[in-house]
């Protein structure tokens, strides 16, 4: 009971911390000066139609690299946590029913489409909403579907690791190329800018986003694979 009471007091306090703001703040009339710079220069700097992509991949590229690393570390951590626990803790009563014929055929049709969709999302990241992360998740969901449909029994760890490592390493390598061929780390302008709005534009942004997509896709699949019991 005392616990409840204190919880309520805490909640009230935090609410009182937050909610005075609601009255104080009104909709902003314009973006911050930094954002203005991004919006104005984004096109000239990187030729990216989607400014968010320009920010994510280039202006704040280091964050994104870090983000990929976080996922990578989490995937590694989770697989370490479950190492040696493959069979223990498996719910004996819980068993995936053998996938139905509909699911299996449906998956066979859908899978290529899903993968293509994922790839589409990340290579068009600089033009449309979406990008490496979203595309990567779509690919991972494709793999999930394949699990359900029984198309794959077990993840091919060697292959996934290869993709993961290669994509990650290439990402860093592309970043370093930016130092030598262009202005700085993760500068995508060592590839031609191309025509604004077309697929092959915005320098190396599509390349980077593709690498991110591959890496995120394989990392997410790894996480799902590790946390899922066979």
């Amino acid at each position: 009971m005392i616990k409840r009471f204190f919880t309520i007091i805490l909640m009230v306090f935090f609410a009182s911390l937050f909610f005075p703001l609601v009255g104080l703040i009104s909709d902003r009339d314009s973006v911050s000066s930094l954002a203005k710079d991004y919006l104005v220069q984004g096109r000239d700097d990187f030729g990216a139609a989607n400014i968010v992509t320009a920010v994510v991949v280039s202006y704040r590229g280091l964050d994104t690299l870090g983000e990929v690393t976080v996922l990578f570390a989490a995937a590694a951590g989770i697989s370490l946590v479950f190492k040696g626990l493959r069979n223990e803790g498996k719910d004996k009563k819980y068993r995936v029913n053998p996938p139905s014929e509909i699911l299996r055929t449906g998956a066979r049709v859908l899978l290529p489409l899903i993968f293509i969709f994922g790839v589409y999302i990340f290579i068009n990241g600089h033009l449309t909403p979406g990008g490496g992360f979203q595309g990567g998740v779509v690919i991972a969901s494709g793999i999930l579907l394949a699990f359900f449909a029984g198309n794959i029994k077990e993840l091919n760890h060697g292959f996934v690791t290869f993709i993961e490592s290669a994509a990650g390493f290439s990402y860093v390598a592309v970043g370093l190329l930016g130092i030598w061929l262009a202005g700085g780390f993760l500068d995508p302008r060592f590839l031609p800018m191309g025509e604004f709005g077309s697929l092959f534009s915005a320098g190396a942004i599509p390349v980077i986003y593709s690498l991110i997509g591959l890496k995120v896709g394989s990392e997410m699949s790894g996480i799902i694979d590790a946390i899922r019991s066979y």
Partner: protein
Amino acid sequence: MVNPVFLIAITLGFAFIFPLFEKINPKLSRLAGILVFLTLVVIPLIWFINISNMDIPYIYSSTVGLPSNLTINLAVSYMEALVLLVVNGVGLFVYLQEAYSKESPWKGKQIILLSIVMLGANGLIITRDIFNIFVFMEISTISLFGLLSCSSDDRVFEGGFKYMLASGLSSVFYLIGIGFFYLVAGTLNLDALPDGINFTGGVLGVLWPLFLLSGVLIELKPAFANGWGMDTYEAADYSLGAIMSGIQATALIIVLTKIIPLIESNIIMPLLLVVGSITFIISHLQALGQSSFKKMLGYSSSAQIGLVLIVLGSGTNILLAIVLLLTHSVAKSGLFYTGKYFNECGSGRDKPLLVVLSSLFVIALLGLPPFPGFGAKWTLLQILGGKSDVFTIFIILLGSLLEGVYLFRWLGLKIKSDRDSGLVVSEVVPDDDAIPGYSSSDTIGVASQTGLAGLGGCIKVHFSSDSFSYHQLFPALMAVIMVVSGVVFNKGVGLTFRFLIPFSGILFFVVLDLFRVPTKFQVFLAIVASIILGFYVYPELNGFNTLFGFIFLFGIGVQFIAFFNRKGYSPGLMALTVGLLVSLISILTSKTNFQLFFSWEMMTLTSYFLVLRGDNAFAGGYRYILFSLASAFFILAGFSMLHGIFIGEYMSLPQNLLPVILIIIGIIIKFAGIGVHIWLPVSYAEAENDVSSIFSTVLSKVGVYMLFLGGLYFSKRVFKGVDTMYLLGWIGVLTSVAGSMMALFQEDIKYTLAYSSMGQVGYMILGFSIMSHLGWISSLYLVTTHMMFIGMLFLSVSGVIYRTGTRLMYQTGGLIKRMPLSFISALFAIIALSGVPPLSGFGAKWLMYSALLEKGWYLQAAMAMFASGVAFLYLFRLIHSIFLGQEKAIYLNVKEAPAPLLIPQYIFMICVMAISMFPNLLIKPLQTVIEPYFASTVRWEGYEVISALGYWNGNAVMYVTMGVFIIPLIWLLIVNRHVYKVKQFNIVYAAERPFKPETTHYAYNFFGHYQKALGFLVEPLISKFWNGTGILVNNLSGGLRRWNSGNPQGYVFQILLYVIFLSFLMGGTN
């Protein structure tokens, strides 16, 4: 110059490619890991050298080739380079330890995660973008969690889960803070902040710093919201503890230093001060009650972070905080490793290297010399003292003392011998049953006593094959680097080259130990060294310094001879003793307070480890170091308020009372004044015999030296209407009465002598506090002669203990026939010590009574005289029990004490005789020493000393007394022919056959009847008080520990509470 981004690129590239690489060639990939981690060290090293040499202030890189305000910047200045160097060094160390460990080396994902941990830390240190900090924070915590899961203790999932909740919440707070910050500042880049925006006005202006700070602070595990971290520490492997406290906490502090400048200083500074103080004290208290080593270190880390917060909050130089932080980082990770090996192997006595390393790390952690933390703490306190910030000084010193309590307890327990019960053996008449391993039927071979540790071969150090292993190499390397950097840093603070001599001395003898040079040869070298030292320093000593220099050099030098009695190897013995001698000399040659205090602490440390060598010395050593630390901290606090003026320069010192009081309290603790004396008897008694002798003769005088050094500065201060010197005089006289009374009732002879020397020091203090010419002469006279006759006594008794194997007086007896030379020496010493004519002790007493009467302190004079009488009683008992009386059957064939013990006694005896017969040999020089301070009130006629109250002629006294003794002697010789000799075991004379023969021995509990009458005087009130204090602190600690309930929700609750607490500190929003 290397682009900072390479730190990130290299680590990350390695982490990403490692799985592929490992599949191809595991061995090669691990080697590549070394290369990568090494690069992480080398790059900051290059920066560090370049920045400090070429005055390049800043290495700067914006990540994308665009103006720096648009992108994320990385920057390295002097400070960052230094921190990176240390943090990456620790990382390399962890890698080498774990990737190549014997059992279950890290591989695959673990190595990947370790390099990502390093990436996170590096990123945190170099990035200049608020959101980027968040990303790196997540990187480092998540990779840590991954590593945690590999711990051998599977409770780690419980701890880790709590940690995750806490760090998840803190990152939520940090994100909210980022949102508000962006709203206010319009940018996330620390270098592109627009001017003129009021960052801290209005509700928003309070909210963003509140949440940003909450995010960072909670990750730093502040008290009272740190239980989750501690639970993780307890369950995680040692190396993870090292990572958490050595790498991550360090990086997060750097993050904090980036945020602090954004917030108005009149808000942030007090806040940090409060938060830091609370963390510092509470965490130390919580650590105090821990039985789990890892958790103890965890709390200690948290407390150290608190200290750094205090430094940051006190607005002093940020570099000090960094130095403290880095010392902590290295020492703590080193301690995690040595602790690991210690806990695997039980007692550490057979692991000399581990003992040395752990000691070094503990010392470094406590901020004692020679490590960088010492200079940093000193500077910090000087700055605080300059600002008269007494409260902060108090907090820092109190916390450091608490830290000493548990760190030295752990160290002592690890070093103590297997036979050591860890308790103080009953000081008064010991009950046989209470003494482990004692039974009255034991023969001499296994004889009996608490202090069987006689001379020679007492520490049995086994160099087993695993005494030194590959894995101790790196901690050793770290220790060496720390010592070197400490020396460099402290030199920057104000040491001169001379103060490095103690190290070279210690180092030299350590090297001799490593090559198994026999102790005897080392002793010879030490004597040569002390002679050379004497010639080297003599010319620059003057006044008191000459006198004390003589006492230190001559006293220790002569007693070195006693060490010849040791057989085989005594590792560390000579290194420590020489270190002690040299630091004592350094105290004399100090020209600034810093040098003085540095040497003082070196003296404390070397003597502490000397005590610890005893076989049953844990309790004694523990008390010794705690009280010595307390004493040192009082002195330090006093020094910090002197505005850097040397205590020896009386005239220009500030006139306020507080520093005087503090320093005097420190000195009182050091000379074991009444009330704070409980450390002295047990540590003197339980040290090895020849070491105790050095302590009692020489080391006990160092407190007196400090008094004389600041003599005029201390005098004429009025404390609540009373002259401080008057109070000090009372403390002196009470100490001497108490010391004598306590000595009276001891059965253990070393306790008797220890209490005796405490009482004698009381006289010296009394003499000093008289503040007159005569008083000072008597004090210094006693200092000199006491050194000699207590030396004789101690060494003579050492010989007895060495031959008989017991320290209990009633167990011996009749040794006069077996050990006549020792007897003569003891007899002379006793005559001198108890102040009866004709020997020099009489002169000392005579001078003192004259001075007291001259001053008009009649009551004190009476009490001093009473103490003197008591002294005669216990000394009489000593000689009576040991040398006279019945011979014991088991001691029928003991031999005279070995020559190495006798020679120093007789050297001292010759000196005592000389001084007794020709007092002016000593008094004349003393007069010249005192001349500058007080006009002379005694004069000389031939060999007569004439004061206002009478005169003293040493020669005449000698002759008269000799006459008085010789006549009865002749008479006795004549009557002796008619004496009827009784056989020793003729039980007719005993009247009954006792059940327990000892109890009927006349010497058993010799002064028991006095105890009935006067026992209330020695009621262990003081021991009770200190025990009570100990229990109180323990209970406090226990209560505080319970706050961390182990429930994840409880911890979340604490964290939320902490945020509320912070919001109140920031001024409150509602």
